């Protein structure tokens, strides 16, 4: 855990450092890198894309994922998780490109594409988190006279929470990367800088966008894995240690 954490800090430090370096000293001949102001703006755009798409995905994904584990809708659980798994195999590029014929270009279609892509891991993990709970735990809860709601709130939810947060983490990291591709349909964000660098064939520009995107992904991963750890009940952490 700590080894991974140190590694993340080093990576973030190096990547942000290099980005700053290219921003101030990256000029070559008549090629100039993105200014500090533009970098901040693009980063903000990038975070907005990810933030909005992810919040929507979390809302829809968790409620949908939990809903299909309830007795009446249980028949949906298997097909939905299957679709979610297959959906993750679609290349993000195809998804981004596929959205624009229907929704045009700009930030809004970008968010729609990102939402669809981020939804799947959240949805799948919410369902799997509940389904993977040992049946005997639920049975003994029922046998002792817990109501359905009590079982959900006191047993199922706390036990599924780490898995749900892990889904959010996967989804967020994927979303940060995919948001760079959303620049293809002019959604804004750091992808715009990468694409500009590519079109004029200037490496410093490409690195500015790419390194900062990567740094964002690593930072969010770090934050969310801490959250995941904090939300894992102590009794379950022990389980992992002994396994």
């Amino acid at each position, binding site marked *: 855990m700590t080894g991974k954490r140190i590694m993340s800090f080093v990576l973030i430090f190096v990547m942000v450092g290099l980005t700053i370096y290219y921003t101030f000293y990256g000029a070559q001949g008549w090629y100039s890198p993105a200014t500090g102001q533009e970098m901040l703006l693009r980063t903000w755009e990038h975070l907005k894309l990810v933030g909005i798409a992810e919040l929507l995905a979390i809302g829809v994904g968790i409620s949908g994922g939990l809903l299909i584990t309830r007795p009446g809708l249980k028949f949906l659980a298997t097909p939905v998780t299957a679709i979610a798994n297959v959906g993750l195999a679609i290349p993000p590029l195809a998804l981004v490109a596929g959205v624009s014929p229907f929704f045009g270009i700009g930030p809004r279609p970008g968010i729609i594409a990102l939402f669809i892509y981020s939804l799947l891991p959240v949805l799948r993990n919410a369902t799997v988190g509940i389904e993977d709970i*040992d*049946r*005997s*735990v*639920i*049975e*003994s*809860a*029922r*046998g*002792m*006279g*817990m*109501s359905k709601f*009590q079982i959900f709130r006191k*047993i199922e939810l*706390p*036990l599924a929470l780490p898995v749900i947060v892990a889904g959010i983490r996967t989804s967020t990291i994927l979303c940060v990367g995919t948001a760079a591709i959303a620049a293809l349909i002019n959604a804004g964000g750091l992808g715009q800088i990468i694409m500009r660098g590519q079109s004029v064939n200037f490496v410093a520009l490409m690195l500015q966008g790419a390194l900062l995107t990567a740094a964002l992904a690593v930072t969010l991963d770090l934050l969310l894995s801490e959250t995941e750890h904090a939300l894992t*009940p*102590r*009794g*379950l952490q*022990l*389980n992992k240690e*002994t396994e």
Partner: protein
Amino acid sequence: MIELEGVSKVYPDGTEAVNDIDLNIGEGELCVLLGPSGCGKTTTMKMINRLIPISGGRIYIDGTDNQELNENELRRNIGYAIQEIGLFPHMTVAENIATVPSLKGWGKEKGRERAAELLDLIGMDPEEHMERYPAELSGGQRQRVGVARSLGADPPIMLMDEPFGAIDPITRDRLQDEFLKIQAEIQKTIVFVTHDINEAIKMGTKIALMKDGELVQYSSPAELLSQPKSQFVRDFVGADRTLKSMRLIQAKEAMKPSPISVHRDSDVDHVHERMKEEGVEYLMVTDEEDRFIGWVEIWDLETNEVDSITEALREDVGSVNLETPLSDALSVMLEEDVANIPVLEEDGKLEGILTFNDLQQVIGETYTEKGGGSAIPG
């Protein structure tokens, strides 16, 4: 306490799991539902606390039809322990045990007190285990905590589905003994499901043997062994049912009390005379406090020059306690290659003698006397 009247269970696909069962379980009884897998014993048990809905018939608990009660309320008043235990992994041992008390709104402090009390009862130090998580316990401890949890709110009735099924035989034996001791104290009405005939004989005050959803025989363990109602029962209890029935009888029930014995300070010639008079070849020897210390043999007194009984004494011979089951007494006899064995109190005081003939006689009586098991010869 629990009455089943024509209880049936038919699943939507048409399978008849339980067919028209009548069963009357008295207060303080430990009723074992016994049978091969798929015989409907677990289904029957789960219809009592309505985990499985009933298809036909009625189940009365303390005279009230269980369908008339709120199902969660009903379950909170019936202890429930299963083979897989199903402890809540994210809760401490104390929280697990206090599950039903907390559902009943006892309050946190009272729940913790109860948890400590129950840990004491099952022989686990409360100080040490209250704050532990299930992952930190051994298999046997988890099983114990599972039983403690089912006793949480002191329910008058308990349902136990192979509660000692998933542990090694040695631990299982110990847990069974411990549980029997606890049960002697708390006197719950228990429905206990198992497929293990030995466990059934050991634990049950009554055994309900089931087959293909039907009740085949409902009787005391001794009667089940001595008077099997059908070939199926005979086969199920096994060819060694004679040996099994010996497990139900304790040495004190079969022994001859106050046997002849001599004191170790007795005169050798006097003892010799006495043995000839009584026509015995062996005699038991005791110390000042009537504790058994060994045997003397008549040959030793005749052929060897012995000055005292202590010199001729044969020590290191087998003995049994008052509570020893006859099956164990028999194996001691076979191991020691003797036909007589002293029966002692806990402190070693000589209480009686058990002979091979006594064993034969008791077994014979078990077979003729209905519900035998407390057959006392002489």
